[in-house]
Structure formats: C-alpha cells, structure tokens
C-alpha cells in the first residue's frame, strides 16, 4: 500500500497532461454551470459603471492586449460593453498594444450591433495608437491631438460623439484591459497626473500586482482573469442588462475543475513524497 501511494509522488507528466485535458474538456462539453463568489474589486467597477450618467461622459476602454491573453480578457470587454450599451453609456475605444487594434475593433463592433448602437454617435473606436505613455499624457491635455483619426480614418471633428471630449475631465472612467503592466502606466501617467479614474482588467497572473493600487483607490476596481469576466457577466445578467451568461461563466467551470485537479495532484504528490522519504529512511 505504501509503495503504491509513493508512486503518486512520481506521476508521469503525460498522465498529468491527460488528466488536465479531461478536467478542462468535460465541464465545457457538458456545460457544467457554477455560481461563484463576486470579488469586491469586480463589484466596484460594476457599481462605478452603473452610476455613469447615460449619454453623459463616456467610458474609455483601452484594449492593451495581444491574442495570447484574449481568452481571458475578451469576455471582460464584452461584459463591460454590454453593461454600457444597455444603460446608454457612450464608449471610446482604443488600443495601445499593436495587436489590440483588431481585437478591439472586432469586439466593440460586435457588441454595438447587438444593441443597435452607431459608430460615431454611441461609440468611437480609434484603433492602435503608437507611443503608449505619450498618448496617455497627451490625452490629458488634448484628446483630439492624441487621436486625430478613428479606426476607419474618420477625422475627430466628424465624430459627433467626440465634440464635447477635450481631455480626461470629459471621460468618466478609463478601463485598461491588459496582460502586462499597462494599467500601471495608466495609473501613473493618466490617473495620478490628470486625476481621471482608472480601472483594470488583467490576466489572473498579473492581477495580484494591482492590489496595492486597489487599496489606495488609485484603481476604482479590477477584473482579475477569467473569474473577473465571469463575475461581471453574472452581475449584468442578475441586473437584467443581458439575457444570458457568456463564455467566461462556462469557462469558469473548466477552471474550477482544473484547479481542483491541481490541488488534488499537489496533495497526492506530497503524500507520495513523504512516504518515499520514510521508505528511504527505513532502508
């Protein structure tokens, strides 16, 4: 029996891979649903967006990420956009990461279509702007100079929605969706210098880095990884802004089971490790 348990300490990695694949695929294939605890950081973004005046100052979404992390960040973007469009909150989209350009355009136009929103009137998308921190700083003084043309090459002045937007004072909230430290730069160059409210949507790996900024209030809130997206989806469905949960809620089941598997594997690995150690000591 002890020898059998000791084997758990040295499982072949292909077995680990196969078990993980099963833990991910089975909940996805059988649409296993799960209800989860909503993080305070997610709720604060939701509450903030919920209090933005309809047809007033817009929400700015910066798609600062590449396709590698799109699985985690796309659902957040869709959920926040649905919340905004359902409430009549206008949206300004842009990207400070080169590959975020097409990602942002795809998401914003798709969600806008669901709500019958019009480009230039209900939302604007400016695509990728090179210069990162320079763009953040420039928008604090003059948004038009930082974003002279939209994604479709329409001049700033021809976009009715942008007529009253001059600098960050005219923006209700900046939400940076990123798999790296973009929100950190937004906090420094836009939040601290120009006092605009900043929120972050980050991959699960990056989210713990932002806790100091949540405590100080430099971040209004944070959506962390797939869970953040799923929580936001749950909140907008509960409030009646959208009719059904999207992909993040479904993927959360797969994540839950895969986490559980990893926890079990770690426990088994430790049992195997200590038993092997005892066997060796006896020898």
């Amino acid at each position: 029996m002890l020898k059998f348990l000791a084997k758990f300490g040295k499982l072949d990695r292909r077995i680990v891979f196969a078990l993980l694949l099963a833990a991910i695929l089975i909940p996805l294939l059988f649409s296993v649903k799960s209800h989860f605890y909503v993080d305070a950081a997610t709720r604060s973004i939701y509450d903030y967006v919920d209090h933005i005046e309809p047809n007033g100052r817009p929400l700015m979404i910066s798609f600062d990420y590449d396709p590698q992390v799109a699985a985690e960040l796309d659902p957040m973007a869709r959920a926040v956009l649905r919340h905004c469009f359902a409430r009549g909150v206008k949206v300004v989209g842009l990207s400070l990461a080169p590959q975020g350009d097409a990602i942002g355009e795809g998401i914003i136009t798709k969600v806008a279509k669901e709500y019958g929103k019009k480009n230039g009137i209900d939302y604007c998308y400016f695509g990728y702007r090179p210069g990162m921190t320079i763009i953040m700083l420039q928008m604090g003084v003059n948004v038009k100079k930082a974003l002279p043309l939209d994604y479709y090459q329409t001049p700033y002045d021809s976009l009715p929605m942008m007529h009253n937007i001059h600098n960050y004072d005219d923006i209700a909230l900046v939400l940076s969706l990123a798999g790296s430290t973009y929100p950190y730069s937004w906090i420094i160059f836009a939040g601290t210098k120009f006092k605009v409210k900043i929120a972050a949507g980050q991959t699960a790996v990056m989210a713990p880095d932002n806790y100091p900024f949540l405590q100080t209030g430099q971040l209004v809130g944070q959506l962390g990884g797939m869970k953040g997206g799923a929580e936001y989806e749950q909140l907008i469905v509960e409030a009646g802004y959208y009719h059904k949960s999207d992909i993040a809620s479904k993927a959360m089941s797969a994540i839950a089971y895969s986490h559980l598997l990893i926890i079990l594997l770690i426990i088994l690995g430790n049992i195997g490790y200590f038993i092997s150690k005892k066997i060796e000591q006896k020898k």
Partner: protein
Amino acid sequence: MKRQIPLIIVLTLGIFFFIQFFVPSQISTNIYQTTLQWTLVISAFAIVLAIGSLVNHHMLKIKRRKPHWWNSIVTLVALVVMALLGIFGRVKGLEPLGELYRKLFHYVQSPMDQAMFAILAFYMASAAYRAFRARSQEAALLLISGFIVMLGVIPFGSMIWSKIPDIAEWIMMVPNMAAKRGILFGVGLGMTATSLKIILGIERSWLGGGGK
C-alpha cells in the same frame, strides 16, 4: 562633442520638464504638447529600426542556409503580406483587403497565438505538481497559502467553507500587498535614483560604450 551634446540635451530637458510639471501656464502646456508630438515622431523611428533589424536577420539566415531557414521565408512573407493588407485595407475602395487582413488576424494569427499560450497551462500544472512539495517550513507556508487562494477563486472553495473566499482575499490584500508594496517602493526609489543619475550625467551607459 559626440558624447557631450547628448549629455547637455538630457540635462537641459530633464531639468526643464521637471520644472514644467509644476508650472500650469499656457506657454508651459504648449511646449509640453509640442514635445509630446516630437516624442511620437522619434518613437516611430524605433519601428523602422525594428523592421530593418528583423528583415536583416532573416535575410542573412536565408542567404547562409542556416538550420530551419525556410521558417525565415514564412516570417518575411507574413510580414510583407500583413503590412500591405493593413496599410492598403484602410484606403477607400480597397476595403476587401481590409477584410482579408481582419480574417487573417482573427482566424490565423489569433488562434495560433492563443494555442501557444494555452499550452502553458499544461506545463504549469505539471510544474506545480512537481515543485509544490512541503520540503521546509517556508515551502509548507507557501503551499498552504497557495491552496487557500486557489480554493478561494473557484466555486468549490465557498462550498467547502463559506469563509475560504474571505481568507483568500485577506491573503491577497494583506500579506501579498505588503510584499508588493515593498517591491514597488524599492522600484520607485530605484527609478528616481536612475533618472537623476541619467539627468545629471552620472549614469552614461545609455550613450553606449558601457558608461566609460
């Protein structure tokens, strides 16, 4: 002179923009705006340099028939095709090219990138299984806190005990944040010190030649 002129520019502009930050006058803001435009133009040169260096690297690989040189052809073709489609796809009358660019991005590049990243999950699971062993007291502490945080983010955590998500949040908000704050404080001080050293000309490695 080759080294002194850049040092003078950095010293002058460094001090000027330090003062500018605290002067909210119109003239100061206008100068700041113009400089931001200059910076954007200068940063555009970085793209030219990057593309030049990429093309050079792969052309050499193809010329010298280095191992896997055919991959370099794929890289160069992809670079040219995506760049041309991206540029001309936004020109009025050539919209189908823009559509092709979007399709190539969404249905070729994006899934490939995501697949590459997804593979990491398997390696991470295998690494966690192998590395998370309670070999010492510190490792055991790490293991326990890791367990609680993992359980806290999944629905099973609150099913086991309703307080687990709260404990996970406390771990993130208190011990994790204390450590992060310490690191950030150190990074902040380091950045300030390095910036001052560059502005004052003490740190010269950015000029090339290892700071000599």
